[in-house]
């Protein structure tokens, strides 16, 4: 408010502040105004008006007036519509709903220059008036013999947002007692000074700044709301009788204060269920009680509680449990007895295992010291009675087959039990029970049957856990003859039990009837493992093993086979549970199938692992049906062929294997103009015995064929001769000496040699003799050769050519032998090649000149003779050819006339590739 003043004003302002600060009535700081009401407490939702009153001194000094007042809630300006200027020093602000209020509410001045100065502020508290406390209730707790406290609780109502005090008040008609102020809570309080037998009015007052509320008064005599302490020092003592126990205790409340009634509860130690003494027996004050009807030799636990005799008030807590034991009494019944007869050694002598159950505590009525077993032989009454004293619960006897009566008595310190009698007949010939059945009941298995027509003393129910790995351990129990069903206890779920019921008659025993049962079934623990036994084209035989009884977890109701192809739908087949094999039919041949098997009980199914198999492509016998007729047909054809050949053997022999005349025995020399040549042959005949040349054909060439040997054809041989003369000195190389020693020499190098060689190993050759033999009419004769030299294309062609152009009759005469051999071995040394050839024709062919003639050229026989004279020169030429400058057969074939174009140095041009020069 001092801002914007002039310098003088600043001084005055400072002086004013000093005065304000130091003024005796204003404390250190004196405000220029104040707000009323000061720090109000307002009801939530109510309206509220505040006044800001400016001091007169400030008006005069600082030109401050009510019109300049602005109101703020926290830092938020209150709308001016809510202001009212009452006079020049008082401004009011009104709030219609206090819920919009907040702290602080300030009164401010907007001084010159629009500078805001705070004048005063108040704290506004908004809350609610207390609600009327409800549901007041009290209970008097006894803390000791003479000390009682009363605890009261109530519902304090809504939250008030204010400091609200609750006080519990109580009064007598003319006396109001000190209030009970709750500590830390607002809904309960405990009064320690209470007085019985006076009607007391109790109520709750809730007070805060906005008001006060009282609960409805509760008028009660505190004695009627007492929760006493439970009886103390409870003791239990046994009485004279074995069925009673006496309880004694001390009450915390004297009879003068309150008469009590009691609840007495008791239970057998170890059991959870309590029994209670009838309330009418304990409806009056007492400090002892005799509990009757208890079991002998049984430990009981007792507990007592009390409350006001008229039932008004609260029960005390149960007292601490105290135990006591009744005294012994003689056993109330004989032990149940049964037997197992072992006749495995001999039917005439039994091993009888007598079994009996220990009496239950309430039957034994004490500690069983021993059992007395008595055996009477009913078959021979004169036999002495045998007695045995046994401390265990079984006894084994060796008895001769017969009827026996077994009596069993249990003894304790007080006396003996009634005897239990078991008749062991020679045979179980009596009627059995009928309609044996089971039914699960919670955790017990009920076994029921229909009684036989005869009177039954009792029934023996045997049962045992069926196991695939161990023997059936028999348990048993006895039921009285009047019952037709018992509950078997201790039955485990998901286990198979074999239950047998025997009726026991007065004069014998009925045969046992058995049934298998489950207390609870589950789905099998695993599924069957299926596999194929046999797979055909359209069917497959599946086999599997039964699940073990431990795996079944219930009765297997059926097996389900599920099979499918890879992309097909699954097919389901249900199979009887007794089966272990099934044949799938209508399958697709040569198809992969996946099959699995599911075992199902009443409570679910389990599937085994997948198994795959593939059906066969052909069915059984299909292959045989095809192969056998084919073979038969083949054999038939062969047979017919053989028969035909046999019938036509002469004709066939004539065409295929004609008789070839022996040239050595030929008389051609006598008429042939080439006697010398023949003679040369003959000279060789002397070296090789006759007969070695049976495969040699001699071809006569007509005289006019000589013209075919033109000069051109003979020229190479001239060159050869020249070559031989000029290169004779060079012939002594590798090819020279070795090739000279070779009986044959390759003159060609060709890739075709492979093919030729492959087809030549066993082919024999024939040479066509075109001229007539001797005086015979010239016919085309084929002479078979023993050579294994392969047929060459050119040779075949030449043959064809010869055969097909017999009219032109350019007769050629030559020898062939192993033409292709060298073609595959052109890179090898001549020695090797020679050796191979030698091996192939050794003995038969050695000494024969081999000559291969181009299809375009012909070589007169005389040339061959001449060649023999030029042996060394030819060998040299051949040696040269093996060095890679061989005329390719392709070239020859494609350009049959290109022989003229061949280099002259290659000799002989008339020699076709793969052929052999005569040596």
């Amino acid at each position: 408010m001092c801002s914007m003043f002039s310098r003088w004003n600043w001084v005055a302002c400072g002086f004013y502040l000093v005065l304000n600060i130091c003024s005796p009535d204003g404390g250190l700081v004196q405000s220029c105004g104040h707000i009323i009401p000061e720090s109000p407490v307002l009801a939530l939702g109510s309206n509220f008006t505040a006044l800001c009153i400016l001091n007169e001194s400030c008006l005069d000094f600082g030109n401050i007036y009510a019109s300049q007042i602005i109101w703020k809630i926290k830092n938020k300006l209150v709308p001016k519509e809510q202001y009212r200027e009452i006079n020049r020093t008082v401004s009011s602000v009104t709030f219609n709903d206090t819920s919009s209020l907040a702290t602080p509410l300030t009164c401010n001045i907007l001084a010159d220059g629009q500078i805001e100065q705070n004048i005063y502020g108040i704290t506004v508290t908004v809350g609610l008036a207390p609600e009327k406390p409800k549901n007041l209730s009290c209970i008097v707790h006894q803390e000791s013999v003479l000390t009682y406290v009363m605890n009261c609780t109530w519902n304090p109502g809504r939250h008030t947002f204010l400091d609200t005090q609750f006080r519990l008040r109580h009064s007598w008609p003319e006396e109001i007692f000190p209030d009970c102020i709750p500590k830390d809570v607002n809904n309960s309080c405990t009064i320690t000074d209470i007085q019985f037998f006076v009607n007391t009015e109790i109520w709750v007052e809730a007070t805060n700044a906005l008001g006060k509320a009282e609960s409805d008064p509760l008028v009660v005599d505190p004695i009627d709301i007492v929760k006493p302490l439970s009886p103390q020092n409870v003791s239990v003592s046994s009485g004279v009788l074995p069925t009673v126990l006496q309880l004694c205790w001390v009450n915390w409340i004297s009879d003068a204060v309150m008469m009590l009634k009691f609840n007495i509860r008791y239970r057998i130690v170890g059991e959870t269920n309590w029994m209670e003494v009838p309330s009418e027996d304990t409806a009056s004050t007492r400090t002892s009680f005799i509990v009757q009807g208890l079991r002998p030799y049984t430990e009981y636990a007792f507990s007592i509680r009390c409350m006001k005799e008229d039932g008004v008030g609260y029960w005390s807590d149960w007292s601490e449990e105290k135990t006591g034991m009744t005294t012994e009494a003689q056993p109330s019944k004989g032990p149940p007895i049964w037997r197992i007869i072992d006749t495995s050694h001999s039917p005439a002598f039994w091993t009888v295992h007598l079994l009996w159950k220990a009496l239950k505590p309430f039957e034994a009525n004490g500690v069983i010291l021993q059992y007395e077993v008595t055996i009477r032989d009913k078959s021979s009454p004169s036999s002495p009675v045998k007695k045995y004293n046994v401390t265990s619960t079984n006894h084994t006897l060796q008895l001769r087959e017969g009827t026996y009566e077994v009596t069993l008595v249990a003894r304790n310190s007080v006396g003996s039990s009634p005897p239990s009698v078991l008749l062991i007949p020679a045979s179980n010939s009596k009627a059995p029970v009928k309609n044996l059945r089971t039914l699960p009941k919670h955790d017990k298995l009920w076994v029921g049957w229909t009684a036989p027509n005869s009177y039954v003393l009792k029934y023996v129910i045997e049962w045992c856990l069926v196991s695939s790995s161990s023997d059936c351990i028999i348990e048993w129990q006895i039921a009285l003859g009047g019952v037709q069903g018992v509950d078997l206890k201790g039955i485990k779920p998901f286990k198979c039990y074999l239950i047998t019921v025997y009726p026991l008659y007065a004069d014998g025993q009925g045969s046992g009837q058995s049934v298998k049962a489950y207390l609870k079934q589950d789905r099998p623990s695993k599924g069957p493992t299926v596999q194929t036994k046999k797979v055909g084209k359209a069917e497959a035989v599946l086999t599997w093993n039964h699940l073990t009884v431990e795996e079944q977890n219930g009765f297997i109701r059926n097996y389900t086979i599920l099979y499918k192809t890879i992309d097909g739908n699954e097919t389901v087949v249900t199979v009887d549970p007794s089966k272990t094999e099934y044949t799938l039919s209508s399958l697709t041949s040569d198809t992969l199938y996946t099959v699995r098997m599911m075992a199902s009980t009443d409570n679910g199914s389990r599937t085994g692992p997948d198994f795959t198999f593939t059906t066969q492509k052909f069915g059984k016998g299909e292959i045989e049906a095809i192969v056998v007729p084919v073979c038969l047909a083949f054999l038939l054809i062969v047979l017919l062929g053989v028969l035909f050949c046999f019938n036509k053997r002469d004709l066939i022999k004539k065409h295929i294997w004609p008789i070839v005349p022996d040239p050595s025995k030929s008389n051609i020399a006598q008429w042939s103009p080439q006697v010398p040549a023949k003679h040369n042959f003959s000279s060789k005949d002397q070296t090789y015995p006759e007969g070695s040349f049976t495969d040699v054909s001699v071809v006569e060439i007509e005289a006019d064929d000589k013209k075919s040997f033109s000069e051109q054809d003979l020229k190479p041989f001239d060159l050869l001769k020249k070559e031989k003369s000029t290169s004779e000195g060079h012939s002594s190389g590798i090819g020279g000496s070795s090739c000279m020693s070779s009986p044959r020499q390759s003159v060609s190098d060709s890739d075709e040699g492979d093919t030729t060689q492959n087809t030549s190993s066993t082919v024999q050759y024939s040479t066509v003799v075109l001229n007539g033999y001797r005086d015979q009419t010239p016919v085309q004769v084929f002479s078979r050769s023993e050579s294994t030299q392969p047929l060459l294309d050119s040779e075949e062609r030449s043959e064809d050519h010869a055969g097909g152009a017999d009219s032109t009759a350019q007769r050629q005469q030559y020898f062939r032998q192993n033409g292709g051999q060298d073609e595959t071995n052109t890179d090898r040394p001549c020695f090797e090649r020679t050796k191979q050839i030698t091996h192939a024709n050794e003995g038969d062919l050695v000494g024969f000149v081999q000559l291969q003639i181009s299809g375009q050229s012909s070589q007169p026989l005389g040339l061959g003779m001449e060649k023999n004279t030029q042996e060394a020169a030819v060998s040299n030429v051949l040696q040269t050819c093996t060095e890679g400058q061989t005329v390719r057969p392709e070239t020859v074939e494609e350009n049959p006339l290109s022989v003229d174009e061949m280099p002259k140095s290659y000799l002989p041009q008339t020699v076709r590739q793969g052929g052999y020069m005569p040596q």
Partner: protein
Amino acid sequence: MKFVPAGVVPFVALLLLQRRPVAGRALLLSGSGCPGHGLCRSNVQEQTRRQVALLNATAQELFSLYLKCQGEPFSSESDKLCNPAGIFFPAFRVNRTSERKEVMVAMYKLFAFLNASLGNITRDQEELNPMAKELLERLHNTTKTTRGLISNLTCLLCKNYNIFQVDVRYGDSSKGKSAFKKKQQGCQVLRKYVQVIGLAARVLLPHLSPS
């Protein structure tokens, strides 16, 4: 009737006022006019009987415990030291044949006196035997019971007989007396109390039994 805090025994003679019921007229001061009439219910009669029976049942134990806690010579010479002959004790000259109202008034005088006397005894014993917790507790309880009894008797007198003020005489205060005297006075009062409470119980029983 005014509330008399325990331990404070003013020697004030209270005026007994009796308002006779007027036949044929509405009672101006009927039961509804009694103080705390909402609490003055029908069970008050039974409550009163139970209170007298309770005091009777505990009086002897209280006296025995008091003697025991005072030590010698009180424990051995109680007959001599505790002879109440020399002290004031309200006369209780009623019997089973007395009028019920008379019995109620006598009872009121008796228990008003006892309440004041027990208050004094409790105060003295808190001073003389502060460690005698059981005695103090019993004295407290007996005093509280007498307070409740006075409240119930006030209710009964007002409700049944329109009596709401009874003249009561109290005994001498023990304040300023020696410890022995205090013990002796307490012993004498309690002995007399044992005697009178038994009589009161017997007299009151037929009068307060449910009719």
